[in-house]
């Protein structure tokens, strides 16, 4: 009897431990450097998260639910009373404001052969690796406005808003939820600053400009001073030479006169 309780206790603990660590994660930052952007978030697909709930001969599918963090106060249920997952859309929940909406559905990623991230460098393999490894929430900008669109719509998210995501494992024949992860940690999309706020003031003057301006101003001043000095010395020089010529002329004129008078 005691052993039964112990086993049960361990089982419960085991379940709790497993669930504590299973949350959708944001894609590896060294791979997807532009994440999250203004309106998109790239999440890692749920590798090896549901393996304990998978049975060999059944077909499963994974649903991704997204909601704004503020909606957790209103409703964060992704299933109805009979364990069937909700079919809510982006429009029905006002973009995740009133509750979670279904953003994607894809098949269970293989745990045995996960994608090799090193293959991203190869041009031929990169598309396949990215598709296998991550999912971009908010990728489809046109499905909201296309009346013929019938698949799951994944419209762009709102900027500067915190979102939470959850993966749900579904048995496709029965249509019943078999397992789910916890809600992810809050992930916030970017916010933008206005370009008007960019300060284009250049700051203090550079040294070059101060040197050039000051030295050239001094040189111009010296040049003008030199020009005035040479012009004035030339004018005064011509004045004094004119005087000496006058004086020598008068001396020459005054000298012969005494000779004439003596005769």
């Amino acid at each position: 009897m005691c052993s039964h309780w112990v086993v049960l206790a361990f089982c419960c603990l085991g379940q709790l431990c497993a669930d504590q660590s299973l949350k959708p994660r944001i894609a590896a930052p060294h791979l997807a450097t532009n994440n999250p952007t203004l309106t998109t978030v790239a999440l890692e697909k749920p590798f090896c998260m549901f393996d304990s709930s998978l049975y060999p001969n059944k077909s499963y599918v994974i649903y991704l639910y997204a909601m704004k963090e503020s909606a957790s106060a209103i409703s964060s249920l992704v299933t109805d009373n009979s364990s069937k997952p909700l079919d809510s859309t982006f429009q029905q929940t006002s973009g995740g404001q009133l509750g979670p909406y279904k953003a994607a559905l894809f098949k269970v990623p293989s745990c045995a052969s996960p994608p090799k991230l090193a293959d991203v460098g190869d041009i031929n393999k990169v598309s396949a690796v990215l598709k296998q490894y991550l999912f971009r929430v908010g990728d489809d900008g046109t499905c909201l406005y296309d009346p013929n669109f019938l698949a799951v719509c994944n419209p762009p998210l709102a900027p500067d808003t915190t979102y939470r995501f959850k993966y749900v494992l579904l048995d496709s024949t029965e249509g019943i939820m078999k397992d789910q992860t916890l809600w992810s940690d809050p992930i916030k999309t970017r916010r933008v600053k206005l370009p008007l706020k960019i300060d284009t003031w250049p700051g203090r003057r550079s040294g070059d400009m101060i040197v050039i301006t000051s030295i050239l101003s001094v040189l111009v001043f010296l040049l003008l001073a030199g020009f005035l000095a040479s012009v004035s010395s030339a004018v005064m020089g011509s004045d004094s030479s004119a005087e000496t010529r006058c004086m020598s002329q008068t001396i020459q004129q005054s000298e012969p006169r005494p000779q004439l008078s003596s005769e």
Partner: protein
Amino acid sequence: MAKIDDGIHILQGLLVFGNVVIGMCGIALTAECIFFVSDPHGLYPLLEATENDDIYAAAWIGIFVGFALFALSILGIVGVIKSNRTLLLVYIILMLITYAFEMASCITAATQRDFLTPNLFLKQMLERYQKSETVNNNDKWMTEGVTKTWDKLMLQNQCCGVRGPSDWQEYMSAFRITHSDADFPWPRNCCVMDAQGSPVNLDGCKLGVPGYYNSNGCYDTISGPMNTHAWGVAWFGFAILCWTFCVLLGTMFYWSRIEY
């Protein structure tokens, strides 16, 4: 008497030499300024749109000043050899006017260079690149110039934005109004292109996977040529003016000592 004659001859020789150097520097200045005005890197539309294109005005002044220096140096050589007072007076006055113009050109180039900061180009890029609603012809002309220049810059130099592609994510822009963030986190030209001119992998570019987008900024490729331009005009002009100052002072002294 012989000593004074020798002194005058030495002064004449120095002045002729000084004028020869001025003439050659004048031609070099003209050639350098023509090179800058021809805008080999195609960056003029960016300056025109910031309305801060005075380094080009400085280069234009430099073209004409260089030619004037060459012509005046020939006049100076003739005046010094003939010891003609009138010629030398004309030479001095015209040289002073040319000196003033070249001084304006140097100071303009050095001052305007200070305005060309990364923030200036960032703001202009965000406000004008692929702007769809232009108010008048002038706006349209500037917008087209900025868009074409940035497209060419990003493609040829494998760069994106002023400081990096994050400029497009951090700030609101005219580009963002017409291009949704989901499809265009940054312009297509920021993606690594193949030989046909289309992105190698569009998803990789949008997600920012290293190797599929250009992660460095274009500021270095803009500021490099502009610095060369501004400093080439400012400092070479400054050097010519320092030399011309000495020659002019010598000429004024020589002129004041010539007898009519």
